[in-house]
């Protein structure tokens, strides 16, 4: 019986225990102190967060200890500040004293202690927001601004200096989202400028002690800014008028300087700069007038010399297209130009390509070119001459008479020339020769001999290029020939004889007046002064250009004019003819001068008709 009761009791207890365990009552969890705040540095409040209460009614108690004291006090006021809080009133609050605070949670099953917290009241001050915020619109010289004023929170005693607050306010338009912040320092009033007319503004303010936390923002104050648009409008009118004025001035300036601007932007195309060149005459189509205009009086300038070695220069230009020896429209260029399709005359040419280049400069250049060409025979001859003549040239070049720039046209490669190289070479050889005028020194017989134009213009090729043309042009007329038909308006008071001084590399024939020589040597009484022209009589088999005087058709040479080889009696008289021979023709002197052959209308050599000449 007893056993049964005991068993029943045991079972009941077991059941009860089990039942109790199912409900799981626990001792409370550890609470935590969340924060402590003092609004005016005279009182403060602490809040805590309770943990789980474990299912049982739990009580919380806050205990604190002051610095350097072992006495534990309990929170005096749990209610003033609300739930789970402890309020320390003025009597219990000591500033600059370290408080050690902890909260204890207790229920039937146990107690739990929170972590202790050390606080010094002076560092936990968070004031209330400022009060009595007032906003008003005021005017400053016609421009409105906002005057904001407020008062410190009533609890904070700033009057006694116990607490010092600094303020901050923020402003925004009603329709916007971004606030404009302004730090106001310790003052309780602030002005806001740069308002939008007609806008509605929101203003708020907050405060903070020197070392502490910012308060919450105060309640918002609304203000309407009245319109001041008319004033803005007048300003715009002023701006518009000013800019119009500026624009007018700019336009006027532009108008004044259009001419200069045009020059800047569209520079004028330079025209030809040739003395005596007259477009109008050209347009009129009267070539005579035009060419006569080109002739510059007193050109070339000659220093007064008793030898009257006025230079008479005639030179031929090779023209690709025609065979005529007359002046042609080529001369319209007014210069010593090629009529080659490629040559463009003076501009842009290198120094050696220029027409008006002193011969000596291009000696080396010509040498180079010569190496590429056929006609080594010519080269040899020319070089021979050159060598021999070197003695002369320095003397000569120091003559009184101004030297003309020797013209030559190496006739640069006619790239598109259908001719083969050899013919082009010949073409190259046919260039306008300029004659340097110089005073001839009394020379030796060798010098005299060398002065003949020993010139073979032939090359290996035989055929006459139909397209070549020899043109001549005289700058200065030394004879009646020149007068009649010199396109350049030859007119010279005196005529002179010119003989070949030498031939340079580029097959340039340098002619020198013979008359002076004659005069000096007094060996040629026959030669009239300045009357006779020499014409090309022909080219002898030795590739020497034979010249004769005009009209005679016969030799009239004097002894001194005889060539050195003396094989024929042809005369090499002074002649002002510089011949540019076409590449293929060889001129032989064996032929007597025939009108059809040698003379064109102008008395120039027409090498075109010399096709029957034997080849060199």
């Amino acid at each position, binding site marked *: 019986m007893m056993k049964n009761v005991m068993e029943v009791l045991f079972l009941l207890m077991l059941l009860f225990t089990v039942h109790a365990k199912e409900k799981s009552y626990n001792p409370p969890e550890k609470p935590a102190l969340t924060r402590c705040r003092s609004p005016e*540095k*005279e009182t403060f409040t602490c809040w805590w967060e309770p943990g789980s209460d474990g299912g049982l009614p739990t009580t919380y108690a806050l205990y604190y200890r002051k*610095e*350097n004291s072992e006495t534990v006090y309990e929170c005096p006021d749990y209610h003033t500040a609300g739930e789970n809080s402890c309020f320390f009133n*003025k009597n219990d*609050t*000591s*500033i*600059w*004293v*370290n408080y*050690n605070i902890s909260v204890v949670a207790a229920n039937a099953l146990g107690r739990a202690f929170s972590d*202790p917290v*050390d606080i*010094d009241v*002076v560092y936990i001050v968070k004031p209330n927001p400022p009060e009595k915020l007032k906003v008003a619109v005021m005017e400053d010289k016609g421009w409105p601004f906002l005057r904001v004023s407020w008062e410190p929170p009533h609890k904070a*005693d*700033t*009057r*006694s*200096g*116990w607490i*010092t607050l600094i303020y901050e306010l923020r402003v925004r338009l009603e329709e916007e989202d971004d606030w404009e912040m302004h730090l106001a320092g310790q003052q309780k009033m602030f002005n806001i400028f740069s308002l939008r007319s007609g806008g509605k503004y929101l203003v708020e303010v907050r405060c903070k002690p*020197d*070392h502490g936390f910012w308060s919450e923002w105060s309640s918002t104050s609304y203000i309407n800014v009245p319109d001041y648009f008319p004033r803005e409008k007048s300003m715009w009118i002023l701006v518009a008028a000013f800019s119009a004025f500026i624009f007018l001035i700019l336009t006027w300036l532009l108008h004044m300087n259009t001419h200069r601007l045009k020059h800047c932007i569209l520079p004028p195309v330079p025209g030809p700069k040739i003395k005596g060149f007259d477009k109008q005459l050209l347009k009129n189509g009267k070539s005579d007038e035009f060419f006569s205009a080109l002739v510059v009086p007193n050109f070339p300038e000659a220093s007064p010399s008793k030898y009257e070695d006025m230079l008479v220069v005639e030179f031929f230009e090779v023209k690709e297209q025609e065979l005529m020896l007359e002046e042609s429209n080529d001369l319209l260029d007014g210069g010593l130009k090629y009529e080659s399709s490629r040559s463009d005359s003076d501009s842009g040419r290198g120094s050696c390509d220029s027409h008006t280049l002193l011969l000596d400069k291009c000696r080396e250049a010509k040498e180079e070119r010569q190496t590429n060409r056929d006609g080594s025979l010519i080269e040899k001859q020319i070089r021979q001459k050159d060598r021999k003549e070197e003695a002369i040239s320095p003397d000569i070049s120091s003559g009184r008479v101004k030297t003309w720039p020797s013209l030559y046209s190496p006739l640069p490669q006619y790239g598109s020339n259908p001719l083969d190289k050899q013919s082009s070479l010949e073409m190259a050889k046919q260039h306008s020769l300029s004659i340097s005028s110089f005073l001839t020194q009394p020379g030796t017989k060798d010098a005299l001999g060398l002065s003949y134009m020993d010139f073979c213009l032939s090359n290996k090729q035989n055929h006459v290029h139909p397209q070549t043309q020899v043109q001549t042009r005289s700058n200065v007329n030394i004879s009646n020939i020149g007068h009649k038909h010199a396109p350049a308006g030859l007119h010279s008071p005196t005529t002179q004889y010119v003989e070949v001084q030498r031939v340079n590399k580029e097959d340039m024939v340098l002619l020198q007046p013979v008359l002076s020589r004659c005069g000096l040597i007094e060996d040629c009484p026959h030669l009239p002064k300045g009357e006779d022209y020499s014409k090309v009589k022909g080219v002898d088999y030795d590739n020497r250009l034979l010249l004769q005087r005009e009209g005679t058709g016969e030799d009239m040479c004097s002894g001194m004019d005889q060539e050195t080889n003396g094989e024929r009696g042809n005369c090499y008289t002074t002649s002002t003819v510089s011949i540019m021979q076409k590449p293929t023709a060889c001129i032989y002197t064996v032929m007597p001068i025939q009108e059809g052959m040698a003379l064109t209308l102008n008395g120039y050599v027409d090498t075109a008709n010399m096709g029957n000449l034997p080849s060199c």
Partner: protein
Amino acid sequence: MKKVLFAALCLVYLELSMRVVSAPICSYGQAGCHVPSLADLFERVIQQSSRMHSVSSDLHSEFEQYFFPSKNIMGKRKCHTYDILTPQDKENAQRLGREQLTEVIVTLLRAWGEPLSELHQSMSQDQHQDFNIYSSNKALEISDIVHELKDGVKIITDKMRLMGVLSNTVGYNSPESLVPSSAFYTQGDLDSMDHHDLLYCFRRDSNKVKNYLRVLKCTTLPELGC
């Protein structure tokens, strides 16, 4: 001989007439010099104390970050200025009156002169060079400010006495406590008290000084709009 005498006389006369007269110190409002007003003096002093407090606060927080990552609980040690009685709340401070308040301020400042210079020296010699290079400068600055403040407050008290604002009354602190600072702090105490505690104590005391000065100003010159 006569010439020499004449020259000598001239020189003497010139010297006498051209003697430079040094201007007197303008603390008593002599004519011809600008005397700062009490308000200006207070303003200056309060600025100084504010600066002192902010520097010490920075130094303390740096110290805490560098050496004690976790929040440090003040040890059991007392500050060496514990014995100086200071008002711990507003009523007490207002009840104290200007004279005693001034006295408290001066006492506090005097108590900190020496420890701060020792702190500065100690910090410059410390092996924690990364931290101490900048902090020793701050310690030096604090030391200088405290010294200046002492002089400034003395000037203010003199001026207030002159103005009749201050009267000679019984000190707040017992005469025993008004002993020189060395009583509170003996040399070598720095070993027992580490830098951190010292900085903690000074931060608090500088706050006290600042606050007391403000209270003093606002009670003495209420028209300034505190």
